[in-house]
């Protein structure tokens, strides 16, 4: 296999507070290769967005990367600051935010926002940049792109605006795109279109995509591989087929069972009892054990086995399915 576009190794993000140091991301490792979509899933507060923000270097104070490595095509970038980091953003890694209504500057035309990004990163003339901007809008499926280039964001519908946001994230041709809940704020009918667009762009351009979402349906639809996060830790990592079909971690099973699925017939949805613990009150041992119906003494004493970036493992002492290969 070729070198992964993004490698995250033992990433720890800390927030110092007056009641002690919180760890919204605690020892997370994964890889994303070219043309692959990695779905990162979990409840809100599980640390999925924080992981994405850490990768692109947009952690809000006082959150900071405490340890671990982030490698972009093999080069470490977790220690970069200021100007060096800015050159990477947009150029080599793009980001798509949740709400297309607020992601675009209301006072500048979409053409202005596209060309300023292109001119910032690529050595092209203003005229060329404008052509590229039109092409970018065209590529994400904005009809009559050349006419719409002078429009302001409020003149587009929500779905169209999210297409503009995607065009903006991709217009300087980055190798990695972090999509943070890109469909959550959209109508259900538009969600599928945006997912299909992301998948197409990923295949055509060979971009590596980190798709952060809380929606198992989106994961099943779009992702090649899945990372399940719980309370800042990786619960399970593997190909989408395995995670959806033969989940190993009881939390993943619970997450699947609480997602409506038309194909399985409308059985009653199951809920996971309780709620995710607050970061300042994590239980001893496996953080999931208070909500887990399979928990035993060992789960209360030690956190589950820590995960490497390899597929097919779960951070659980008593996984539901044994991996097919013998564990290392």
């Amino acid at each position, binding site marked *: 296999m070729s070198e992964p576009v993004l490698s995250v190794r033992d990433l720890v993000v800390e927030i110092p507070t007056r009641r002690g140091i919180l760890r919204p991301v605690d020892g997370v490792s994964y890889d994303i290769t070219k043309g692959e979509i990695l779905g990162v899933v979990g409840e809100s507060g599980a640390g999925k967005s924080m992981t994405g923000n850490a990768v692109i270097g947009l952690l809000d104070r006082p959150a900071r990367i405490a340890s671990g490595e982030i490698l972009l095509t093999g080069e470490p970038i977790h220690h970069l600051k200021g100007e060096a980091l800015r050159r990477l*953003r947009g150029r080599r890694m793009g980001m798509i935010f949740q709400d297309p209504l607020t992601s675009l500057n209301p006072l500048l035309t979409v053409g202005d926002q596209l060309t300023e990004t292109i001119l910032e990163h690529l050595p092209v003339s203003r005229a060329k940049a404008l052509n590229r901007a039109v092409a970018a809008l065209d590529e994400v499926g904005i009809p009559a792109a050349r006419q719409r280039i002078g429009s302001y964001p409020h003149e587009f519908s929500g779905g169209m605006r999210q297409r503009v946001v995607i065009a903006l994230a991709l217009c300087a041709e980055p190798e990695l795109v972090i999509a943070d809940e890109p469909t959550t704020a959209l109508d259900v009918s538009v969600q599928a279109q945006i997912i299909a667009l992301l998948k197409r762009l990923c295949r055509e351009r060979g971009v590596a995509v980190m798709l952060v979402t809380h929606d198992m349906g989106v994961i099943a639809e779009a992702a090649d591989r899945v990372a399940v996060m719980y309370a800042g830790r990786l619960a399970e990592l593997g190909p989408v087929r395995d995670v959806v079909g033969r989940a190993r971690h009881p939390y993943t099973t619970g997450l699947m069972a609480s997602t409506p699925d038309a194909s399985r017939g409308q059985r009653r949805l199951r809920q996971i009892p309780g709620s995710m613990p607050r970061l300042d009150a994590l239980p001893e041992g496996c953080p999931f054990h208070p909500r887990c119906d399979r928990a035993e003494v060992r789960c209360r004493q030690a956190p589950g086995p820590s995960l490497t970036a390899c597929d097919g493992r779960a951070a659980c002492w008593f996984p539901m399915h044994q991996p097919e290969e013998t564990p290392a």
Partner: protein
Amino acid sequence: MLAYIIRRVAQSVLVLLVTGFVAFSMFSFVGDPVENMLGQERTQADVDRLRDQLGLDRPFAVQYWKFLEQAVQGNFGLSYRQGRPVSEILAERLPATLELAAVSGLLALLGGIGFGIFTAIRRRGAAANVIMTVSLIGVSLPTFLIGILLIYVFSVELGWLPSFGRGDVVNLGGWSTGFLTQSGLKALVLPAITLGLYQMTLIMRLVRTEMLEVLRMDYIRFSRARGLRERAINFRHALKNTLVPVITITGLQLGSIIAFAIITETVFQWPGVGLLFINAIQFVDIPVMAAYLMMISVMFVAINLIVDLLYFAIDPRLRIDGKAGGH
């Protein structure tokens, strides 16, 4: 857009009608105008004649209408104290106030916006913190104390600048200006700083708050995620969005400069309309008070309308009628 402007104009007219009503009520209910105008030696015949002349026996609504009619023509009657037409007194004092307000307004605007942006962008820096602390002292320091302090330092101790009056003025077709003489310019320095400083701190704090608010927006984060330079983010993306709310309040602040001029004019005995107004209050000179109120309202309403029109120039979301041209 047209409908919006018509609505705003209608609102302005409403504001003027209400302040007109307040001014008229002052005439009608505060003291007896007949007594005020005739003084001690009066006969019943004089009283009746004046009552008839002023239309005081006619219905309230008629009187109000008559008052408005007169007010539109700039006729507010005679000052109780000086016995001259109020409009004449106001006209002769207005240039002094307007020149003072213009210089202070410019000072407040340039300084306020500049320092505001600086303290928002460098909000954790030492210089920004110093400016913020000084500005808080500025807000707590009443205008009249600033004036007294400046007089003490620059007039009493150093003797550089005059402590009162307007200096020599040149009359240009009914407009007396202090801009053309050296003593006029010197006399302007301390009052302009006094009046402008307080407004400057207010505008500065406002710009800073709004800009910090904008810098937290998603589109600023997105601009950062796209790798734009800090300078482009601050001045192209953030500043433009900051200006929309800032223009409203700044407009109002500039309007209030004319009102705050009352204090500055008292401290420096500046012969403008503000000093006239404060004397009118002390002597309950109702026609002058009413006329001043109306004049100020017209100015405020005009400023508000201009602010609304500026909105359209900046915010494309308000230009609803289809595609907007370049900007």
